[in-house]
């Protein structure tokens, strides 16, 4: 089954063009959607998740016309939004049961079985009686995934799930996701390059509502091979470099600024070539033009 997005555009009433003629075709496995804040990732996620309507274009999942048969899609959808909360004073087991009912799992026995299994799976079983609103960030994200997995979804959308998690929780979360990715279509939207690097079979880089780059991570790396250069510079020279060349990133090290520059050839001798990382791909894409 494939999720096919064609010619999808969306302009907000305030004139912001959030999606500009997006065309994608996504199959089983983890699909990474990488982009800075405000790139239009969440708009795209929500549009696929039936929470928004595009101005034009079409989206299909297998035989389901997503824009017209919203409820059909919802039956096979698992969604974890970027920013979400929970009812206060409701325990994890009760809240998951609540979602199970909403997803149409009305048989009590089955419901209990799947709820317990998912809590087990996300390692929340011991904390199932606690209120979800009191959970730590990592536990909340795991609970979020648990609810997304209810009811055998064929499409799972997770929007920036690892933001704000400590490294250990993030790791844990990655493990969980990568296993899910073996079974169904998973769209992971993130602005953290490592997430994509570790998990995704395929990826796109999005900026300003447009797809800037599409491919597998290794294909992506190919695009910058031999084109990334590094230099230590003085802090206040940065602007000169910015005007002169495509500086894709900069970071401080021992009081000096290290910049990465994207160029076909070394701008001058002081630059040393570096092996382009996925991060460099990302930065070079979004700093283009």
């Amino acid at each position: 089954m494939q999720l096919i997005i064609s010619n999808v555009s969306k302009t907000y009433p305030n004139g912001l063009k959030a999606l500009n003629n997006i065309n994608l075709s996504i199959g089983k496995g983890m699909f990474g959607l990488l982009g800075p804040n405000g790139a239009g990732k969440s708009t795209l996620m929500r549009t696929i998740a039936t929470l928004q309507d595009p101005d034009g274009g079409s989206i299909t999942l297998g035989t389901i016309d997503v824009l017209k048969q919203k409820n059909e899609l919802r039956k096979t959808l698992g969604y974890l939004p970027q920013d979400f909360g929970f009812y206060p004073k409701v325990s994890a087991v009760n809240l998951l049961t609540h979602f199970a009912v909403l997803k149409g799992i009305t048989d009590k026995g089955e419901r209990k079985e799947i709820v317990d299994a998912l809590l087990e799976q996300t390692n929340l079983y011991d904390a199932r009686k606690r209120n979800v609103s009191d959970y730590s960030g990592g536990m909340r994200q795991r609970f979020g995934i648990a609810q997304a997995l209810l009811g055998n979804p064929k499409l799972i959308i997770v929007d920036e799930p690892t933001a704000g998690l400590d490294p250990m929780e993030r790791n844990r979360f990655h493990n969980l996701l990568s296993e899910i990715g073996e079974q169904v279509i998973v769209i992971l939207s993130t602005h953290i390059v490592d997430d994509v690097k570790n998990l995704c079979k395929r990826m796109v880089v999005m900026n300003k509502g447009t797809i800037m780059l599409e491919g597998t991570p290794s294909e992506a790396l190919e695009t910058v091979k031999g084109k990334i250069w590094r230099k230590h510079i003085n802090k206040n020279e940065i602007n000169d470099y910015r005007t002169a060349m495509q500086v894709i990133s900069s970071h401080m090290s021992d009081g000096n600024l290290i910049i990465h520059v994207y160029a076909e050839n070394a701008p001058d001798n002081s630059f040393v070539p570096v092996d382009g990382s996925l991060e460099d791909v990302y930065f070079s894409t979004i700093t283009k033009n």
Partner: protein
Amino acid sequence: MFKEIFLFDLKQNFRKPQTYIFFGIFFILTLLLGMLSAGVFNVATSDTNLVMNSANSVAGIIVGLNDGILGLVNSVILVAIMATAIQKDYEYNTHPLFFTKPITKGSYFFGRFLSAFFTAVFVFSAQVIGYYIGCLFGIGKPVMGPFELMNFLQPFLVFMLPNILLLGAIFFSATTFTRNTLPAYLFCIILLVIRSVTSNITADLENKAAAAIWEPFGAEALGYITQYWTPDDQNTKMIPLEGQLLYNRLLWTGIALLITFLSFFRFSFSQFLQPFSLFKRKGEKQEQSSAIQLHSLSLLPRVSQRFSGMENFRQLGYLTRFEFSKMTKSAFFIIICALGIVMMFIISQYMGSIYDTETYPVTYQILESVAGIFQFFIMILIVFFSGTIIWREREQKMDELIGTTPVSNTVLFFSKYLALTAVTAVLLVVIAVTGMLIQVSMSYYHVEPLLYLKAILRMLVSFSIIGGICIALQVFTPNKYLGFFLSLLPVMFINIIFSLLEWDNDLYIFNSSGPSMPYSDMNGYGHTVGTWLLYKTYWLSIVLIICMLALLVFARGKEKGLKARFRLSRTSFGAKHKLALAVCMLMAISAGAFIFYNTNVLHSIVTPKQAEEDAVAFEKKYKKYERTLQPRIVASNISVDIFPEKRNVSVKGSYYLKNKHAAALDTLFINYMGGDNSDYHYTRLEPETGARMLIDDKKYGVKMLLLDKPLAPGDSIRFDFEIDYTPKGFRNNSTGTEVVYNGTFFNNMVFPSIGYYPDAELSSNAARKKYGLKEKPRMAPVNDSLARMNTYISNDADWIRFETTVSTSENQIAIAPGYLQKEWKKDGRRYFHYKMDSPILNFYSYLSAEYEIRKDKWKDVNIEIYYQKGHEYNLDRMISSIKKSLEYFTANFGPYQHRQVRILEFPRYASFAQSFPNTIPYSESVGFIAKVDDKNQEKIDVPFYITAHEVAHQWWAHQVIGGNVQGSVLMSETMSQYSALMVMEKQYGKQAMKKFLKYEMDKYLTGRTMETKKELPLMLCENQDYIHYNKGSVIMYSLKDYLGEQVLNNALSSYLNKVKFQEPPYTNSVEFVSYLRAATPDSLKYIITDMFETITIYENYVKDLSYTKTPEGKYKVSLTVGSVKFRSDSVGKNSKIPVADYMDIGVFAGNTMKGNTEEKELVLQRIKMDKPEKTFEFIVDEKPVSAGIDPYNKLIDRTPGNNTWKFGSKPPKVNTDVKETKGPGSVTVTVSSDD
């Protein structure tokens, strides 16, 4: 630093639109009120003596706007302005920015507090400004006096400013310390409780002074200090900041300052970071989840998702339960419940007070008086919860999680609606259970669970309509708070505005119930159950239509704006949805059409304004026939068939009309109830001899006939009429309650009358002026010889012979005046034939109901009480009262003209008892359910008193009746009051009279403040209740005291003997008073002038009092008292006259028995006050407690409370001044008694 914070904040506040929105709301509301007072709107006009821009009127508006639901709006707005002044720093997380700056606590705290306070003052000043501008529209009209700025400024300073400070300080402190606005909102509800409890408690006079101090907003205090202000006082005086009002303002301003400073001292920057909380959270155990043991996802059990219609219902049920438990577990719900229950118990203690006598807590009383306020809470709760539940997902940021699940909008929406309805149902059950507990706790065991069930079902339907609209509006609105405001529009504001404008068609008054009648033990909900269902169907379908439209834009995703939301949701707008919408529309339209057909086609809606115009047209058209001589009714023979189950009556009757004039008559003017759509159909109205029709005007109910053969003086003709009463359908918002399933009661007003009917004319002189009609005196002058040709209750008859046959259904008894001649059954109906053996006034009634009968006998007089089963409580008291009354009246006034006295209970659609010849219809709500406390000497035995009064009417009205002129009620109502007082005194002793007379004095003094035309002396009284009942009681009791009971009764009886059953011209009060004057010794003649001929008011007071103990163990009392005597004009403008009057002075000891202090007379002397102030000395045996002048308030006194004073403190100085009057002095009415 204070200045910077204060100014910065103030500037911020004045930049917010909400400040101007609140200002605007108040401004528009009071502007409308002002314009309404100024008579800008085209509505019916009534007379008034008051100007609307006096300090008192403005104070009344300010205080009134703080009452009831408007008070709640005030509080909520004040919360919005003041509560968050500091809390907002926390909410927006700006507190670290402030708290780390080098600012002092004082400048931060007071800067914030005062800027919020000033903003609030600005917003609330709109109430005064709006009213002022509204009043300006009335410049030059009599309803507006000269515009004085102080009239507006002073009430603002005295009431509004301290109230804002008090409430503001409370809201500010509560929110600052709990970091949550919920406590402030809850406090608003508590305020509501305080207000409603206060107003219930003050029904008892004793509590008024205390409530005046304790009620926080000065409303009771204002009411208390102005309670006896005459119209003149109200128009010209400023609000005096003294006495109770001063204490009240000082106390509560002090409390406000105390709260402010207390919270200032308790406030600290660090504490603020840890909110004060009643419920300490348990230490959270932070369990670190153990290492991951990942199972394969493929091991997850497979589940089946089902999406059939059946599953939708399961989801609906589940979600409803979920929403329900969320709401019922909220603190708001629990607190509202608790408050409601507490309040019901408090109010039940003061239920149904008439003369301070409680009623039995019958179920309908509980439901109406006690549960009424609770229902108001439910409404608040519905408005609040509808916002909470619709916005919950978005506020908790769960909207996207829920939005992507395959659950339909319909299930999501209706689960919330159903849950809200279920919560309402729970609250209603709480009401019912609390009500039953109250009944049992008051040892009343006739609990009617079924009636509770019916009542709460009705309320539930009504609330579910409100709930539906609120919840739908919340779906439409872009934010919750706007939603709250919009919810209040249909629920409250629109109805207020419509009623101001007299737009009263129930088709557009939201959630209207159609014609309604109160629940009655006799008649249940009566015949309006069907129409009630119809109206509720109409509104419920409309609300459902709105709900289904709301579904189309149900916020599911992230889209904002109705159009985008509709685009997102339209896929669910399928066939089922469309069908349901169509069905609801069909129901709404057909119910609406049927209602319209009934109210606007079968009947017409008459607004008060239209009624005015009709009265004008009638007068203009027919006034010219007023003097056309008419024959008089001398006999009535009427057959009435009542069909209670069909609410149908058919009447066949005939009058004998006699020409009592000197000339022959040829014109017959017949007057009946007209109107295009009247339920009364006069199918026959014709004399036995031939006549030609001159006018047949069905609209105004006039038929004029020219007799073929003129009626010679002394001759009679028979006049036949037939009436068919068949109500067709129903009216807009009223229904006839005369003919009902059980408890029919109507009188001969519905029968045709002879001659022009002046009572149908417009009576308000302000309105008459508007239509260019001449001013109309409320009554003809006392000596008007033409008017005295009629009694004051009938235009077309003197004394008549009366005979009637009345039939009803088999299970009911039908009653009319007269003695039962024969009773029989025919065709499953019961027939009764009644006949009078002596002439009666043309005033008789018909009743029919399923009655129980209690019989007794006094000498040869049969006593019968026809009552509703279950209402046996006071039958013995009534019978005893009848016997004692007959005893006293026959001994003192003369023989009873009848051989029976019957009391007949009728439903509580009216609450009076009324005396017809030997027949006394008596409402179920007065007396029958009164609970008399025999142990308390001071409580009045209401059923005993009312019964005695009505029995007395058999003498005073049915033997002697005055002409249709001023003062005639003196010989009926005042004398019945006096007669009842004497019977009560014989039964319960003098002590019991004190409280009764105290109430009568209070009612008189209060009544005269509300006079809309002019106050008159007792003997010229123009049917003014407060004069002929309340002042009359005090005066007659006092007259008895001066003259002696026997002397007075002899005078009364000789008057009665002279005038009873007289033919025209009828007696008047001048003649009556001449008998009293004759019986009064010369030294006291002045009291007749004071009591009957003028409005005389005293200011009697204690100036100083003290005592010393004598060597013999006795007490030497020195008492200085003062007396000022005023004559008052028709609007209460006083002028002093010299005092040289006899009055009592007394010294009292207090015997404390079981906590009750009982006064004991040590000295009671009648002295002559011939100087304004006099000092007296007495030696008494016991330790005196109090002393004073006219201690029993025998004289009308403008401040009855200061006649006595307790020893040990100096009484306050009494203001004996009268403002200099510019116009003519007092109006003294002197009438010569020459006939």
